[in-house]
């Protein structure tokens, strides 16, 4: 108890030292935590984008026939593929139409149009930003879903009036029913294959059908071979070309590498904090050594000397930690919100391990900084006080 009192006198007696130590630790811990938060959020964002644009591991794109009949051929190939890949697989038929035109508020807009079965979203889990996704049921008015870029570029949103057409016919009146994040950088419109069957048939000349399918261990060449055999049996002569679509694994590996280099910078910062604290502690070395010698002359035992410094340094380190952890948590929330929220990404959880590590580093370095005077005081004879 008396020891804590003496130690507290030291804490209060050197306000600048105490404040600087607290500040160093505060900066160090918040630094490493915020680097962690920012890089973690970026990682989550990149991984999310890769998942939305490329699908999960492994996703394969099948391209092949063109023309009005190609949709029917794609549907058959898809059913076959799904059968051989088993229940773990998911697939969707998609199509593009070179002549597709989208109009919003009476003006034709430049956009990619993807015709797809609504089940496409089971492969690529687009977060819904507004409204709903494409409906499996027939609707009175053709429903379109646009991506975030489209919504932003053309000031459109769920409920906006639109139209979709090709070259051959008048455009079908349509309504935008939802906005999704699909990770794409270009304005994109999604329309249901079933609901646009007439449009696609009439404009069949520029139609290209495709299949997107995913299964945990599908290989592009394997599925391509099986589909060729299937085509020979069926005698429909369609050759499907398979390419791997997912990029999530490579992206994640790259981001993880970048992230660890960022984190090592953060840890270096923490190390700099350690030196700062030790330095601040050592700057009073002579004065503290002298004080401890005086205490020894006035009756303090040998044991009391390191104990005083130990308790004192830990009071400072814990006070600094008590400031640093909530401060870094606040900053962390701010960063996670700023970087992550616009992408619909939930940030990684607050890195308690780093916070605890930071406080531990503070405790150890404060100890080192304050044990030096204790060590010196124990080595110098008490009588040295007389020659001071």
């Amino acid at each position, binding site marked *: 108890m008396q020891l804590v009192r003496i130690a507290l006198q030291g804490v209060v007696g050197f306000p600048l030292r105490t404040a600087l130590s607290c500040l160093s630790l505060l900066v160090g811990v918040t630094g490493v935590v915020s680097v962690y938060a920012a890089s973690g959020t970026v990682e989550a964002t990149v991984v999310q984008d890769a998942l939305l644009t490329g699908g999960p591991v492994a996703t394969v794109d099948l391209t092949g026939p063109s023309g009005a009949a190609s949709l029917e051929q794609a549907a058959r190939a898809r059913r076959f593929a799904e059968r051989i890949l088993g229940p773990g697989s998911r697939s969707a038929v998609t199509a593009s139409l070179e002549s597709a035109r989208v109009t919003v508020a009476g003006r034709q807009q430049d956009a990619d149009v993807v015709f797809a079965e609504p089940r496409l979203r089971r492969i690529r889990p687009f977060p819904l930003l507004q409204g709903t996704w494409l409906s499996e049921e027939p609707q009175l008015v053709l429903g379109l879903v646009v991506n975030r870029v489209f919504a932003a570029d053309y000031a459109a949103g769920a409920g906006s009036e639109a139209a979709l057409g090709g070259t051959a016919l008048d455009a079908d009146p349509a309504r935008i029913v939802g906005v999704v994040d699909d990770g794409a950088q270009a304005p994109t419109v999604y329309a249901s294959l079933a609901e646009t069957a007439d449009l696609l048939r009439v404009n069949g000349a520029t139609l290209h059908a495709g299949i997107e399918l995913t299964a945990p261990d599908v290989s592009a060449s394997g599925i391509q071979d099986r589909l060729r055999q299937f085509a020979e049996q069926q005698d429909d002569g369609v050759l499907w070309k398979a390419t791997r679509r997912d990029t999530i694994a490579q992206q994640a590996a790259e981001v993880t590498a970048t992230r660890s280099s960022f984190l090592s910078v953060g840890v270096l910062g923490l190390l700099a904090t350690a030196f700062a604290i030790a330095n601040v502690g050592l700057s009073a070395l002579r004065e503290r050594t002298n004080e401890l010698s*005086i205490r020894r002359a006035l009756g303090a035992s040998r044991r009391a000397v390191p104990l005083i410094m130990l308790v004192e340094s830990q009071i400072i380190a814990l006070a600094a930690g008590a400031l640093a952890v909530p401060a870094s948590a606040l900053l962390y929330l701010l960063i996670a919100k700023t970087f992550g929220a616009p992408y619909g990404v939930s940030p990684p959880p607050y890195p308690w391990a780093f916070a605890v590590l930071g406080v531990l580093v503070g405790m150890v370095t404060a100890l080192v900084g304050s044990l030096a005077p204790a060590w010196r005081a124990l080595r110098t004879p008490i*009588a040295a006080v007389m020659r001071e």
Partner: protein
Amino acid sequence: MAEPLVVVRAARKSLPHGPVLLDHVDLDIDPGEAVAIVGRSGSCKSTLLAALGLMDTFDAGSYRFAGTDVARMPAHALDATRGARIGFVFQRFSLIPHLSVVENVLVPLRHARARDRRGGRARAMECLSSVGLGDAARRLPRHLSGGEQQRVAIARALVRRPRLLLADEPTGSLDVETGARVVDLLLELVRAQSTALVVVTHDREVAASMDRTLALRSGTLTPMAPPLPSAHDREVPACSS
């Protein structure tokens, strides 16, 4: 008659592999007695004082303090005895700069056992008042004059009512007049609580105001001639030179 407070016999002290600092030192100090030790700079006065104050040990000979053979005391007992029975006043005051005046006076009590700490603050204030610094309790040492700081050091030395007070050139950092007042105060206070006093000094007047004076020469203590009446007691007209 009871044993003197300090009994040193044939004490010797040398540096490891070095010169002999003290040799054949014999010294008796009775309780309440005031002794001056004089000697040239470098004559090992501080070294002797450190050994008397249990901050250091003699290499040979014997030292009995308050009836106990110091050589047989374990380290923690030396620390405890030094804290409880011996007070120190140093030439350069040696106050702890970041502690207030009253906290400085309390330092010896902070390192004492709980039972000895009771009533410590009141005792510290009493000591401060007795050196005329009752009003300065909350100030920091650096805001006091040299004479005031040395009075704080005296209050600190007396706070645990020691049996022996050791002062190493207590006036060495003070001007003559302030020094004289500090020594008068010191004498008055030790006499009031019958504490023995050993003062190391270069100042003949300070030496003359003690009960007896010993000279440290070539590492040995020798009594000086019985003190002459000190200058201001002499019935001669003040010298104009």
